[in-house]
């Protein structure tokens, strides 16, 4: 089987992620495409630990740790700093978790997107604050257990539709991607690199630790997320042009939920409810895509 993915690696062995971490694969695939002329900006997140203990780093490109809420602001500043020195070649990559993107860093991200700052912003989404011990975020899906949404009252609100929110800023490029489909992911990174302005990539990054799933099953879970329509792969250009990149196989959502302990408490009714929500969102997306 051939692959369109570049083979040059920018992540070294010995990083500090948990076994089966989706976020490491996300960074690896992205840097494979972006190459060494990249500056990575990382707010407080799992990745502020994963890259290793200073002065060592598992990432072979320059990397800057920022405060939780500031990835997009610091990326804006670095880009301006490079511009003023005449460096138009280096890609600035903000690489933030869902907490830093959906919650605390959203103000900075929205501001940067409205100004159309020229960088790639990646949200690696593991659907909770994993680095601090699995607390809910506004990316946590409906019905999920976390340490602050205990089984007695699990999350009762849907996940924020971040891609549509970002697309609504009319930025040139916004796309979802999954670590289970590296060719699609790599193609999107390559496309983003070639566009001027704010590019937003929302990458589905399973977390076996926080999802109470097996490390060996994260790729399967990520594939199921796409094919149960829980996490469709699509892209939005200039705010309005929606393309669905992969036709889901329409697998019942139960198959996805049952591999994760964070959903173990759900009743048949709850699962039916989630199926209904997923179907509705898919219909909503189809309408946008046809538009």
């Amino acid at each position: 089987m051939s692959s369109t993915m570049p083979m040059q690696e920018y992540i070294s062995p010995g990083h500090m992620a948990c076994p089966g971490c989706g976020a490491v694969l996300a960074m690896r695939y992205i840097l494979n495409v972006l190459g060494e002329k990249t500056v990575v900006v990382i707010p407080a997140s799992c990745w502020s630990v994963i890259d290793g203990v200073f002065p060592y780093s598992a990432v072979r490109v320059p990397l800057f740790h920022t405060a939780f809420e500031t990835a997009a602001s610091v990326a804006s500043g670095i880009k301006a700093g490079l511009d003023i020195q005449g460096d138009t070649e280096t890609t600035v990559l903000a690489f933030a978790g869902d907490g830093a993107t959906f919650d605390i860093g959203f103000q900075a991200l929205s501001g940067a997107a409205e100004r159309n700052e020229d960088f790639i912003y990646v949200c690696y989404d593991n659907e909770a604050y994993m680095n601090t011990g699995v607390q809910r975020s506004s990316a946590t899906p409906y019905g999920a257990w976390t340490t602050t949404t205990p089984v007695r009252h699990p999350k009762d609100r849907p996940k924020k539709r971040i891609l549509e929110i970002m697309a609504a800023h009319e930025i040139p490029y916004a796309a979802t991607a999954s670590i289970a489909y590296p060719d699609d992911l790599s193609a999107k990174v390559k496309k983003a690199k070639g566009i001027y302005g704010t590019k937003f990539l929302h990458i589905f990054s399973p977390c076996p630790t926080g999802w109470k799933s097996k490390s060996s099953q994260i790729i399967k879970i990520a594939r199921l997320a796409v094919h149960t329509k829980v996490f469709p792969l699509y892209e939005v250009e200039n705010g309005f042009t929606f393309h669905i990149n992969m036709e889901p196989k329409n697998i019942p959502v139960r198959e996805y939920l049952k591999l994760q302990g964070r959903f173990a408490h759900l009743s048949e009714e709850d699962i039916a409810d989630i199926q209904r929500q997923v179907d509705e969102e898919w219909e909503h997306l189809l309408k946008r895509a046809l538009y």
Partner: protein
Amino acid sequence: MVERVLLKGNIAIAKGAIAAGCRYYFGYPITPQNDIPEYLSSELPKVGGTFIQAESEVASINMVLGASAAGARVMTSSSGPGISLMQEGMSYMAGSELPGLIVNVMRVGPGLGGIAPTQGDYFQATKGGGHGDYFNIVLAPASVQEMYDLAIKAFELSDKYRNPAMILCDAILGQMKEPVALEEAEEVTLEAKPWALDGSKGRKPQFLKTLYLSDGEQEAHNLELKEKYDRIREEEALFEGKGLGDCEIVVVAFGTVSRIVKTAIQMARKEGIKIGMIRPITLFPFPASIIRETAKKIPRIMVVEMNTGQMLEDVKLSIENGVKLGFYGRPGGGIPTPEEILKEIKVMLDEEGF
């Protein structure tokens, strides 16, 4: 009946808050204090309370401010960068004289730092921290029992003076387990808050504000606040004294470090060296007068902290000329051993010709 249970420090604070009648918690994840929101997310609903995980610390502290303005007993907890983000809200709370508990389980800094124990936020906690001319009431527990007791005390002082109160601790106190005596839960009756914004049916609307624009109005407000802080200084300073009767030197230390100093004192007594200790329990108000009076009798003081010398400045301001003042500090997550502390004390005593 007093129940003794083995508890983690963070959980003891959460239990103390519930025992104090706090029913509202607003917070945001950050290590090493996550046990507090996690515990309260499951326990507060059981007692009819409300737990909200906010989208940031800015949101958390302003939810605290809002609930407090409505008259509720309310708290939040955080660490390092999160506490920094809360400073604006705390300044507004101090300015509009709103009570509320803020727990800071300190982590090392500056910047993202790390989660190791430290006392690096002493200045931020005790000197205001945000903008404007104000102080927080600051309590520094040194045991898991005190995490529980001082959580209750903090709410009482905070309501009494209509002023934000902070518990300043660290990862050791937050994460270690010790037996705690829990008072039998009584129905807590909170004193009425006639100033609260709870609708104006049948009375004139009232205001809570921090914006004073007329000539002299802000100055008058600040002077009123000063009078309150002076009263707090006068009436609320707490400390623990140990071996002050017959010692050659006095160590001043708070929180985690004071526990290590106690071991150093025991080791020294075996060698015939008599060391006393003053442990400030309130950092604001700072127990200046006991330090001043003690230093008149024993003019040798050693300050030990897990920072590069912050409480040291308050000790300096407490003593008069002629007192020999030493300092030993370990910043950035360094934890002094009893041997190190004893060695530093011996060096100081040698210099003094003991």
